[in-house]
């Protein structure tokens, strides 16, 4: 019961943080999208990359940290399933990749898949090492 409540609170926190980062990137790219030389800046899912890498670091840290601080397993669930799960997103990652493919931006699509995976694994490993 406590774990379910913690997942809710931390999941909402992760979702709001992701929405804030997404909105920040959308706002700043829209400012920069109109350039004096007339070129339009192409969208690229930076915000999703950032939240996914950040969330992989958090889930890596979660296990070792809760053990070290002597916290119960419900806190590990809160950080891993709640915070990291709410912060990261799989559906936006795949949908953004399909959007890039639909615009015939094949290199960007491949890069979006590869860089999320590579940096996600590196961030998770860094978190595990740091907290372990």
């Amino acid at each position, binding site marked *: 019961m406590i774990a379910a409540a913690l997942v809710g609170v931390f999941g909402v926190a992760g*979702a*709001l943080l992701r929405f804030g980062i997404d909105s920040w990137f959308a706002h700043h790219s829209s400012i920069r999208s109109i350039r004096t030389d007339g070129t339009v800046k192409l969208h690229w899912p930076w915000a999703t990359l950032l939240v996914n890498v950040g969330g992989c670091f958090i*889930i890596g840290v979660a296990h070792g940290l809760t053990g070290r601080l002597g916290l119960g397993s419900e806190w590990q*669930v809160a950080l891993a*399933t709640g915070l990291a799960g*709410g912060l990261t997103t*799989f*559906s*936006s990652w795949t949908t953004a990749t399909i959007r890039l493919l639909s615009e015939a931006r094949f290199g960007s699509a491949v890069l979006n898949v590869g860089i999320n995976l590579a940096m996600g694994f590196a961030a998770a490993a860094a978190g595990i090492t740091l907290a372990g």
Partner: protein
Amino acid sequence: MPNGRAWLAVAAGGLVGSELRYGLGLALPDAAGAVPWTTLGINIIGSFVLAALTTVWMARPHTAFWLRAAVGPGLLGSFTTFSAVIYASDQLARADAHPVWITYLALSVVLGLAAAGAGWRTGRLVSRSRDGQP
């Protein structure tokens, strides 16, 4: 930046999405050392629905922003998870279960993208037929 209603909508959607994912994980727990099928299913379903809604909303840009925020970044963003895929793959690799983590990662990427692609097309077809276009 978005208004208060949009933030509240994301919070509500995020609560439902996180609890749904947590609840499914309790109801259908992923077995240790095996492909986490529940997480895989969640991510495939979420990819299909988000991509379908994305093209529907592109065709209907007047859909209320708070509603899109509640369902997209809120519900589906929180329901699906990237960190669990990476963490489970990392743990399986550390346990030398190499065929398992490679299968899991390949299925996640291939089926996730296929689901998003199918959703993208479905959303387009749905909005075209509704608007009476060929």
